[in-house]
């Protein structure tokens, strides 16, 4: 039993020693590095897959060892947990110690002041009492204690700069607070992304299914989202002549709280650096792109119109690709339907530029739009139960011959293609879309508060010097008094010298009034 206790005590001591803290700090720095050098799942899952595929065995080993999820890995968590324990173990005794110091008196005046790193002496007119009283006046703001010594000598011990340690404690406690609030945030946050057409379409934060992708915190099941709705009326982008973006602005309306019941919409200009903050959530403008509108008129005369977002393949020119998929209306037999489904796929250019008869885009803005489309007919596989990307057709169906190309043509808005069976595909025009991100993290103000306290604590701890000063006045037996001043800085920081000399000079200058 006592062995176990001894072991626990030693472990605790070891863990909370300064050396361990230092080594843990370096381990933390070292462990964080792979996250900057290797692709991370939290940032870009496809990059991770590519990396593993190209590095074979190595890639798989790294994956096993969680090198692609560094900040959620067992080893990274272990290091910062130990650091956390070490921090707590270090702070508790230091806080008690500091509380004691706050009520303690400055230490006795050393017998021999001339041994101190700073010291000065002078023989002055006046009695020890007067000179000590003058010293007390000069040392206002210092913590003082005056003592009577043998032979009529008097001394003052003064100490200043207690806020250094206070600042240091504030800094470390605030860091503790930061770590705790970060962890809480990971429990209760969520983040979702959704593409909304900028033609008056709406998005409501009423369920996770409304999102294109959704990332819940550990304790979030998606049933309890903050209710609000957003309507995107219009999106404007301005570009410099070289194609570099200058401004992005989405003109939106939103409603939350009371407004939902009264159906009141409030306007907001959503821009890149100014998210909408409502209902405790934040809505960001992350990106934008184009959604071409196609109308397919089927042989039976019925027509269907769809506007589906295509995704940019080149972020500078916004050349986009996508697949707009149509189900033939009025066909009830599913086998027959699966021969008549239509997809319009290909490229869309906001500013058409023909290069060797291939459509590319010359500029990201909508100046001269055109689409180069392949019309596919057959089985799209939409009702196969297999999920598929909204931007692509299922290539395996093309390979197996169940889906085939029936036309290929470049289209300007208003132009159309006629297929062999009388179906007509018309390119009507284009609508812009915006991609929005909704983020929820009620703990982030606490993280910010901790960070601010850290800065304040750090400032105090690095600028304030803890220093001591002693004055001793001894009668020299001939009616005058020998005054000695000594000083000691208690911290690593040099630079006490100047202040000490200034004070000593004032205390030791011959007094004009006597």
């Amino acid at each position, binding site marked *: 039993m006592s062995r176990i206790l001894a072991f626990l005590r030693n472990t605790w001591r070891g863990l909370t020693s*300064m*050396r361990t*803290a*230092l080594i843990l*700090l*370096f381990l*933390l*720095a070292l462990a*964080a*590095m792979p*996250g*900057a*050098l290797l692709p*991370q799942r*939290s*940032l870009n899952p496809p990059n991770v897959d590519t990396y593993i595929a190209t590095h074979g065995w190595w890639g798989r080993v790294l994956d096993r060892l969680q090198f692609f999820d*560094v*900040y959620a890995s067992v080893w990274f968590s272990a290091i910062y947990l130990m650091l956390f324990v070490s921090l707590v173990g270090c702070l508790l005794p230091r806080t008690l110690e500091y509380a004691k110091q706050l009520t303690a008196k400055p230490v006795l005046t050393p017998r021999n002041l001339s041994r101190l790193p700073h010291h000065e002496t002078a023989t002055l007119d006046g009695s020890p009492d007067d000179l000590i009283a003058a010293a007390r006046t000069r040392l206002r703001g210092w913590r003082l204690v005056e003592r009577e010594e043998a032979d009529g000598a008097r001394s003052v011990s003064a100490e200043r700069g207690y806020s250094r340690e206070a600042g240091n404690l504030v800094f470390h406690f605030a860091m503790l607070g930061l770590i705790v609030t970060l962890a809480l945030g990971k429990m209760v946050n969520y*983040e979702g992304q959704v593409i909304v057409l900028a033609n008056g379409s709406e998005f409501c934060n009423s369920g996770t299914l409304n999102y294109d992708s959704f990332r819940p915190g550990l304790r979030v099941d998606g049933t309890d989202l903050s209710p609000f709705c957003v309507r995107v009326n219009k999106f404007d982008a301005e570009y*410099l002549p*070289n194609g*570099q*973006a*200058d*401004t*992005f602005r989405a003109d939106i309306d939103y409603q939350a709280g009371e407004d939902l019941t009264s159906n009141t919409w409030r306007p907001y200009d959503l*821009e*890149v*650096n*100014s*998210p909408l903050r409502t209902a405790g959530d*934040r809505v*960001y403008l*992350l990106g934008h792109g184009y959604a071409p509108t196609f109308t397919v008129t089927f042989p039976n005369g019925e027509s269907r119109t769809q506007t589906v977002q295509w995704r940019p393949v080149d972020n500078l020119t916004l050349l986009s690709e996508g697949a707009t998929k149509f189900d033939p209306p009025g066909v009830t037999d599913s086998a027959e339907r699966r021969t008549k489904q239509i997809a319009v796929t290909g490229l869309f250019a906001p500013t058409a530029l023909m290069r060797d008869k291939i459509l590319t885009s010359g500029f990201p803005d909508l100046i001269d739009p055109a689409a180069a489309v392949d019309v596919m007919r057959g089985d799209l596989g939409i009702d196969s139960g297999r999920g598929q990307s909204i931007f692509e057709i299922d290539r395996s169906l093309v390979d197996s011959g169940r889906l085939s190309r029936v036309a290929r043509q470049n289209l300007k808005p208003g132009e159309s293609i006629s297929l062999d069976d009388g179906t007509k595909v018309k390119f009507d025009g284009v609508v812009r879309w915006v991609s929005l*991100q909704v*983020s929820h*993290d009620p703990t*982030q103000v606490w*993280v*910010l508060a901790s*960070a*601010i306290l*850290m*800065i304040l604590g*750090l*400032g105090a701890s*690095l600028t304030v010097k803890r220093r001591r000063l002693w004055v001793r006045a001894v009668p020299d037996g001939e009616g005058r008094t020998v005054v000695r001043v000594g000083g000691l800085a208690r911290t*690593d*920081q*040099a*630079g006490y010298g100047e202040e000490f000399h200034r004070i000593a000079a004032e205390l030791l200058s011959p007094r004009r009034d006597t």
Partner: protein
Amino acid sequence: MPVNDTLSTYSDWTFGAAALVYVFAMVCYAVEQAFNRAAKKSEQAVLVGAGAPTSYGLIEKPPARSRPERFGRMAVALTVLGAALHLSALVLRGVATGRAPWGNMYEYGMAVTLVAVVTWLVLMRKYDVRRLGVFVLTPIVILMFLGGTVLYTEAAPVQPALQSYWLVIHVSAAILSSGLFLVPGVVSVLYLIRASHDENPGKFTRFGPKLPEADTLDRLAYRTTIFAFPIYTFGIICGAIWAEAAWGRFWGWDPKETVAFVAWVVYAGYLHSRATAGWRGKRAAVINSVGFAMVVFNLFFINLVIAGLHSYA
């Protein structure tokens, strides 16, 4: 806001001129360093005392200046001139583009090196370390050269994500602290050389004795670091606040954020090492140099090699 091409061309010329002047300054520092035999303490004290400009121009003949001394003074004068040109280059860029002149890596590097030079000029007034000028200017000139060639970017407005007053606050804190960190980074390496020499005079026999006392180097590194560290911390926090507004989260382990965190932890380690038995002195100096290496790594490697949200350059 259109870019003023004339001004931006002037900025380029001034920047080149500044780098050239620094090279001349380095030559002068090097001459001083080479001819200066290990200065004896007493001699140094005299030089420092006589160096005060007030004693200059008196009828009594001031103590004759030795040749290395004259080169040293010339080096300082050239450094000041270079810094003035350097500053003009930065200001001209800012006027030409009509925004804070640190929107891409070229401008960023220009500003960081300027801060480092100014830091060095200030420190030279306080400490007797002029002889080290060549070591401090070498990395600065290298950074400027890389900036002017590899990283050079035409003056242009910045993209929407960077159009925020946080660009000014966050990036100036980063520039200030990085420029400040350069000096202790270099000085810590020199400390290691001097300390090795002190322990074993057989090491660095020619070079070691010419360096200032290990103690001075250590104090210089420490005081500059504790000045820079809170600014760096502030810069990281401002970055997080800006990221919250621009990218939707205040911290996302983006490569740039990660390496900034690593460098911060290394500097925290440096401060702790000075309060830990057995870690003062050489180990602390190693940690400080590693810290600066991380800062440089973050500037170059992460921006150029690894794509992340910060890759605007």
